[in-house]
Every structure is written in C-alpha cells, then in structure tokens.
C-alpha cells in the first residue's frame, strides 16, 4: 500500500522526493532537540549578541545625553532613525506576504519557508518599532502616543500620519505575533511529544496549550488560519502605505507624491525577500535542509525579487519624470539635487544596487546558484537602505530656502544604533532557530504525496 501511494502523481515538486511523515518530523525537530549545536550557530549568535551589547550601550548613552549624540541637526531631523525604521519594517513585509498572501493564493511551496519568514517579520518589526521611540527625545514618555484619559487634559492628534503610524505598526506587530504563534501550536505539540527531558516536555507542553491534533480542532484551526491570512493581507499592504503617508502628507519636495504607497509596498517586499534569501541560503546549507528548502524556493523568491525590483525601478523613473513634467520648481530642484548634489554618490549607488544588479536575476543559471543569490540579496538590502536614506535625508537637507539648507553627517552613535539593531535581529533570530522549529512541520507533512486521501476507497 505505501508503495503505490508513492506512484500517485506529484503535481509539483515542493520538496525533494523520498520524505515520510516521520523523517520530516525528525529532521526539523532534531535541529531544536539535538544536543549538538553547529559552530555556525555560535558564530552568528555570538556576533548578534556582541552587536546587541553595542546597541544597549548606544541606547544608554542616548538616554543619558539625548538625541544630540546622533547627527540630526536642523534641517535634517529625521536622519538614520527614520531611515532604519522604514528599512526594518519593509523587511518584515515579506514574512507576512509569504504567510498570508501566498496562503490565500494557494502557493503550497510557501509551506517550508513561512515559519522563519514570519519570525523574521516579528524581529524586524521589533527592531523597527524602537527607532521612532528612541527618536522621540524623551522615549520614556512614549505612552503619550496612545489615547488615554490623563490629567494633562490632552490627546493625540488623529489627523496626523505619525499617529496613524503608531496604530498601524502596533497592530502589525500584534497580528504578526498572533499569526506566528497560532502557526506554532501544532509543532509545539510535536516538540512536547518528542522532547527527551522533563523540562522540555513541560515548557513545550505549556506553550502548545495542550494541542492534541483532534479533527475538531483542526477544522476550527484551519478556519482561523484562513481568516487571519485574510485579515493580515490588507494589513500588510496598509502598513507600508501608512509609513509612506509620513512623507507624502508633508509638503517637502521629493516627498509630496501620490505614488509613494505602492512604491513603498513594492520596495518593502523587495527588501523582505532579499532578507528571506539571505537567511535561507546559509541556514539550509548548515542544517542540511536542502530537501525541504529546495532550489525551487530560492528561485521563486528570486523571481519575486526581480518583479518587485522592476516595480521599484519603474517608480524611480516615474518619480523623476513626474518631477520634471509637473513643472514645479522646488520639486525639480529636489530631484536635480539627488542626481547631482551632495548625495549623488548615495543616489547612484542605490540605482546600481536596486536597478542594475537585480537584472542578473533574469537568468536561470544565476537564480539557481545559491552563492550568487546570497550576494545579490545583500546588495539589494544595502540598496534599499540607501533608498530610504536618500528619500529622507536628501529631501530634508535641501528643501525650499537655500539659506536653511544643511548637510547630514552621521555620527558613530548613529552607526552604533543601526548596527545594534542588526545585532538584536540576529540575536533573536538565532535564538528562535535554536529553540523553535524553523520550518513548519505540520504544513510540510501536508506536502507529502502520502498526505493525500485516496477517495475511491471511501
């Protein structure tokens, strides 16, 4: 019987052939439950921990001395902090795209990359969320951002995009966490049943909430997953739209533009898939997961990168065209300054990283080479950071009156805070790799040909 089930047509090779329910479970669970941890893990976790300490130092100095330790000076008051905020939150978007939008589109290949992509979302949003708070000047008063009855008799301004952002980002963080946790529950049950020591059984048991794989539960669970995906899909598109409102609602030249929302969302998914590839390629190599995260996954992610990269390229072209064709002198000047002004090196670097470099992804030979894909994903991540830096800093540095222009110079504390959040991200991510299953075990089981119920027997 099991032999004939192997003969059932396999419509798509989502994972390598030859896996069974047992071997899939064992391979993914072994990463967590094994006693042996690869050197690679210690190196990455150590690097993340080191940078995290740098972050704590930078934040401590910031709390003592104030935001003056950063390079933000009039007129560029939004330097690195907001650049990093937009960059990190954009990276998070790919995780939600994979977990929600690809689920609704029935793209089954997503099943083996959605878990760590969602974790990536969660940690990227955690890094992003800290920047606006640290940038407040008095971060300990951040609760003033929320409407609550207070003796000061004041309330947030609900007509401001900055308040919209508070609601959008905190909703995004909450919903991402819920979605991720709900997805983890059945796998936590698996870990509970397979843990060899009492502490493991207790901890995973409590976290799994007593999941027992009942058909009645699965039925409700699947409804819940679909509904959450349906809610997360408009949410993820709205979050970067609201982030772009921070810019477009203002009248600063280079910001005041109607096509920022789709342009920002495409850029977010672009950088997010670059991060997915940058994480997936080393992980599958070190943990021997090439059978589950196959070349097809890398190739599909590369295709999404290429498509969103082309949308971003189109946006760059249209941005310049609209500035020229609109005939508004300040707008024209803003774009001329980007192309030739003090920030021209950043501009042309971002054009090279975001438009020219990804054109290699047209070639299948390039898309199926993990090393080249890894390099190109890092290039895209750098390019997308430069794009946000460009939009924020160059527009503020030279706006209307030449007498009030000023150039932004990043200080070492700017860099320390930025590198520090990369450390925080790596720290959290590698902790997740070690303690929780990085691939959704139960969703991979459904990809196996044996999982199909043969109806003619009923």
């Amino acid at each position, binding site marked *: 019987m099991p032999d004939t089930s192997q003969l059932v047509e396999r419509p798509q090779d989502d994972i390598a052939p030859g896996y069974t329910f047992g071997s899939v479970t064992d391979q993914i669970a072994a990463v967590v439950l094994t006693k042996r941890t690869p050197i690679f893990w210690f190196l990455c976790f150590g690097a993340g921990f080191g940078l995290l300490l740098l972050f704590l130092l930078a934040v401590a100095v910031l709390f003592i001395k104030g935001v003056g330790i950063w390079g933000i000076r009039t007129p560029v008051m939004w330097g690195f902090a907001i650049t990093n905020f937009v960059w990190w939150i954009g990276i998070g978007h790919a995780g939600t795209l994979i977990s929600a939008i690809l689920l609704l589109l029935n793209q089954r290949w997503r099943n083996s990359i959605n878990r760590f992509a969602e974790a990536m979302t969660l940690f990227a949003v955690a890094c992003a969320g800290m920047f606006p708070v640290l940038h407040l000047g008095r971060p300990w008063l951040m609760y003033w951002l929320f409407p609550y009855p207070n003796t000061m008799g004041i309330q947030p301004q609900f007509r401001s995009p900055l308040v919209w952002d508070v609601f959008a980002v905190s909703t995004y963080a909450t919903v991402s966490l819920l979605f991720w946790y709900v997805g983890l529950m059945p796998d936590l049950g698996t870990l509970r049943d397979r843990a060899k020591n009492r502490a493991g059984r207790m901890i995973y048991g409590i976290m799994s909430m007593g999941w027992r794989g009942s058909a009645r539960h699965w039925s409700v669970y699947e409804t819940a997953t679909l509904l959450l995906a349906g809610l997360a899909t408009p949410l993820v598109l709205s979050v970067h739209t609201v982030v772009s409102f921070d810019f477009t609602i203002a009248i600063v030249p280079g910001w005041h533009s109607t096509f920022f929302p789709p342009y920002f969302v495409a850029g977010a998914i672009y950088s997010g898939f670059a991060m997915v590839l940058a994480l997936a390629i080393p992980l599958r190599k070190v943990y021997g997961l090439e059978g589950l995260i196959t070349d097809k996954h890398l190739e599909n992610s590369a295709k999404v990168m290429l498509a969103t990269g082309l949308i971003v390229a189109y946006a760059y072209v249209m941005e310049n065209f609209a500035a020229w064709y609109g005939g508004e002198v300040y707008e024209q000047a803003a774009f001329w300054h980007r192309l030739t002004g003090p920030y021209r090196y950043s501009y042309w670097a971002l054009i090279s990283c975001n438009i020219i470099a990804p054109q290699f992804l047209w070639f299948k030979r390039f898309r199926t080479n993990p090393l080249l894909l890894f390099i190109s994903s890092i290039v895209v991540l750098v390019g997308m950071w430069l794009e946000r830096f460009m939009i924020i800093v160059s527009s503020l540095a030279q706006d209307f009156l030449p007498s009030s222009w000023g150039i932004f110079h990043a200080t070492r504390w700017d860099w320390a805070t930025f590198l520090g959040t990369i450390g925080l991200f790596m720290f959290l991510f590698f902790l997740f790799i070690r303690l929780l299953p990085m691939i959704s075990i139960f969703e991979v*089981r459904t990809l196996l040909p044996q999982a199909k119920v043969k109806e003619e027997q009923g």
Partner: protein
Amino acid sequence: MSGIYGLIAEFDNPTALVKAARAAREKGYRKLDAFSPFPIEGLNDALHLHKNKLPLIVLVGGIVGGLTGYLLQYYITVISFPINIGGRPLHSWPSYIIITFELTILFGALSAVLGMLGLCGLPMPYHPVFNAPRFALASRNRFFLCIESADPLFDLAATGDFLRALEPHEVSEVAH
C-alpha cells in the same frame, strides 16, 4: 464502562483514518474524534465538521473594532479635545479611516485567535486521550480514531470488535 474514557485505534495513513471515521459514523457512533499530525480535508466530511462559529465571531470582532476606532476618534476630536484649525470641520472623517481600519483588523485578529482557542477548549494541558499508550505518535506519523465511552452505543467488547475489523495497527483502551 465508567472506568475508561474510550477505545482508540491507531492507523498508518490518512486514507485508513478517513475510512474508519466514516464507517464509525455510519455505524451510529457520535461521540468520536480523530487525531492526526496535520489537517485532513476528508475528515471534516467524515465527521460532519464543516460548520463552525468562528467566521461569525471574527465578523463581530471586526465590527466592534471598527466602531471602537471610529467612535474613539470622534469622541476625542469632536467632544473631549476639539482643536479648531482655521475653521476646518472637527468631524474630519477622512482622517479617521486609517485608525478605524487598523482597529478593525486588530480586533478581528484577536477574536480569531481567542475564538479559535475558545471553540477548541484550549488551553487544556491534560486530556484523557494522552493516556493512550502510543499517542505521542499522533503528532508525528500516526493517525488515531477514538470512540468515547460516553457514546450511547459504546460497548467495550462490541466497539472493540468493530474497531479491530477496520484493520488498525492497534486498538487500545484509554484511561481517564
């Protein structure tokens, strides 16, 4: 009869489980449940599990969230903390849209998760079915069908024979 929770049969593959669940349902058993390491589409048919109240819960949650968002902003900007900026209307509904939307999603998602847990009766750290000897495999590669002793048709010998006739890997008693 009161001594045990029920009888559980272990199967090797999802097809056998669906077949067994359908047979038990046709035989007249109602207090039965299946356990599998992943969701199986055919089981919902076999056990008549297609309807649940979750979509309704999420709809209500979303509507409550949307109303909360809108009314919160209306109350603050019009009644409790009005700011007159150049005579613009206080009830500026276009700028309320974003937060109304975000709270709709937030409340909808929270009610989806809490509703799911509520409908499943989770968290429930202890359940008698965990006493079944090989039940740890239900989260790995085995498929179980449990007929509870609370079912009016349950009879230790007859139900045991019925389950054994379905050619399971093993049939065992589940203690309370």
